[in-house]
């Protein structure tokens, strides 16, 4: 029986010729990742297990990004603990404020994820690196601890859904709209325990930043991982960012899929997820009149340079509507600097937006933009659960950077085409 991309990567890392869905395997890890929320729990478990060193100092990455720069004393204590752990274990990929970024923007940029890798991270959006043709998945702190100690993790081999993309996205449609459309179509548990495999000629119209956004939100459909076929764009990205050896896997022609979906990208419209689930999607022409208090542009989903370019293009020469707060979070220091050099930061600040240091911040209701009771935000982040960005009676609408920027100008959820053409 043929294998999917994911199955091939898992088999190779378990030292097996082939695997099939449902099979339990133990596989070697290329990278184990954690942040300032999940690593403290992992460190405690690591110490409890009796381990005294990490399996490979170059294959552990720790990124304090959630409540940093430290939002309060408790957060500071957690960061101090993981800083000391990283130092003590001589973890090579610990990124302090000044060099850190939002982990899922930072790891690919630093060249730590490449095609064919098997990566676990104690953060659900670890699935982002599937954009590079790697198998990467979110786990909890105990799995992170065991991974750091042994370099191994057990997996149940997933079956897969195949998404055949064709056609060219029109107007302001981006990777974010494609993935929101897909989640709206299959539901928040539509890919539960499964892989989402993205293939097809439409791929060539999706930039790497689009693909990172899409793979990032595979978890929002319940998937174990999202993975993209490797093409020239992937290899160009890898060449530019990494010196790590990599391996390109392709699905077998006779690989078996639970479902195959064909998606014509040229028919998609900007898409918005209404509260309180990512699958509650509406196309922009069906949104109605929804006034907003805050706009968030950034996060591990949409905090990359292209996202900022789109936002700045729309905001340039215009003004954020009086009474609306527009907060921009570049994903990494490099993205911040590049945006600065390109003049994007100037354009956005002149429009009345504020630009923050890289942090997960408001996405999870941590800090730097919490919502009050009854307030409403348009956000380029990934979740709109009850209370996600603050008060239990606040609301989050998920959208692309283009929709978010357009909405900042009008003060209500707006089709970017109504502000300007691409």
């Amino acid at each position: 029986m043929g294998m999917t991309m994911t199955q091939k990567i898992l088999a190779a890392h378990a030292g097996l010729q082939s695997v099939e869905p449902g099979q339990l395997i133990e596989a070697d890890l290329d990278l184990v990742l954690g942040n300032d929320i999940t690593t403290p729990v992992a460190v405690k478990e690591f110490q409890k297990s009796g381990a005294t060193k990490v399996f490979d100092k170059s294959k552990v990455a720790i990124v304090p990004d959630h409540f940093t720069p430290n939002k309060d004393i408790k957060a500071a204590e957690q960061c101090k603990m993981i800083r000391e752990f990283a130092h003590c274990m001589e973890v090579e990929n610990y990124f302090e404020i000044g060099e850190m970024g939002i982990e899922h923007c930072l790891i690919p940029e630093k060249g730590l994820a490449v095609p064919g890798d098997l990566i676990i991270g104690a953060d659900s959006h670890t699935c982002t690196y599937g954009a590079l043709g790697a198998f990467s998945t979110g786990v909890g702190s105990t799995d992170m601890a065991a991974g750091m100690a042994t370099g191994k993790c057990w997996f149940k081999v997933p079956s897969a859904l195949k998404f055949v993309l064709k056609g060219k996205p029109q107007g302001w449609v981006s990777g974010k709209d494609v993935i929101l459309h897909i989640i709206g179509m299959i539901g928040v548990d539509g890919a539960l325990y499964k892989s989402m495999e993205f293939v097809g000629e439409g791929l060539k119209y999706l930039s790497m930043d689009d693909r990172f956004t899409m793979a990032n939100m595979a978890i929002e459909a319940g998937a174990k991982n999202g993975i993209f076929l490797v093409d020239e764009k992937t290899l160009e990205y890898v060449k530019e960012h990494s010196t790590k050896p990599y391996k390109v896997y392709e699905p077998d022609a006779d690989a078996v899929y639970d479902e195959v979906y064909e998606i014509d990208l040229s028919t998609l419209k900007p898409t918005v997820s209404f509260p309180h689930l990512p699958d509650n999607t509406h196309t922009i022409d069906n949104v109605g009149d929804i006034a907003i208090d805050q706009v968030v542009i950034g996060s591990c989903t949409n905090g990359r340079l292209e996202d900022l370019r789109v936002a700045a293009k729309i905001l340039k020469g215009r003004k954020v509507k009086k009474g609306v707060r527009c907060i921009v979070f570049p994903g990494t220091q490099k993205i911040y600097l590049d945006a600065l050099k390109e003049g994007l930061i100037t354009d956005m600040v002149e429009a009345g937006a504020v630009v923050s240091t890289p942090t997960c911040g408001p996405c999870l209701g941590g800090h730097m933009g919490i919502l009050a009771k009854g307030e409403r935000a348009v956000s380029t982040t990934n979740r709109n659960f009850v209370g996600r960005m603050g008060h239990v009676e606040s609301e989050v609408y998920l959208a692309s950077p283009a929709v978010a920027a357009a909405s900042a100008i009008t003060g209500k959820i707006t089709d970017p085409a109504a502000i300007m053409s691409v």
Partner: protein
Amino acid sequence: MKAKGKVFRYKDNVDTDVIIPARYLNTSDPKELAAHCMEDIDKDFVKNVKEGDIIVADRNFGCGSSREHAPIAIKASGISCVIASTFARIFYRNAINIGLPILECETAVKGIEAGDEVEVDFDTGVIRNLTKGTTFKAQPFPEFMKKIMAANGLVNYIKSKM
């Protein structure tokens, strides 16, 4: 190994943000986390939950973030078992790893209401609704998972083997 208690009943897609909101994740202390467990979906949960009680929910319980703080908060609040039609995969792994027993059983979920008294036998997978006098059968845990539960989590289990 058995669990017995009163049922707290929830619907589809109970996410980790309502199980333990991120604003409390600046600590990993189980007691502190338990004090805010389910706060954004059920304000009275913490007030009413008693040692041994059981959570029953529909589909995709524990979706969202990978925070292990979610099963930790549930376990520390006194809950002895979570029964759902399906679980989000990271939550499932995390619950097993920290020694919180969870069972997937759609028929049981359909036949249990809030406040029912329920008994679970993890060795046989038999779930009894004592209030309604009905019985359901879930897949019992495989042997290695039973051992993880008995050791109170994966790390203790690994240690006990070394």
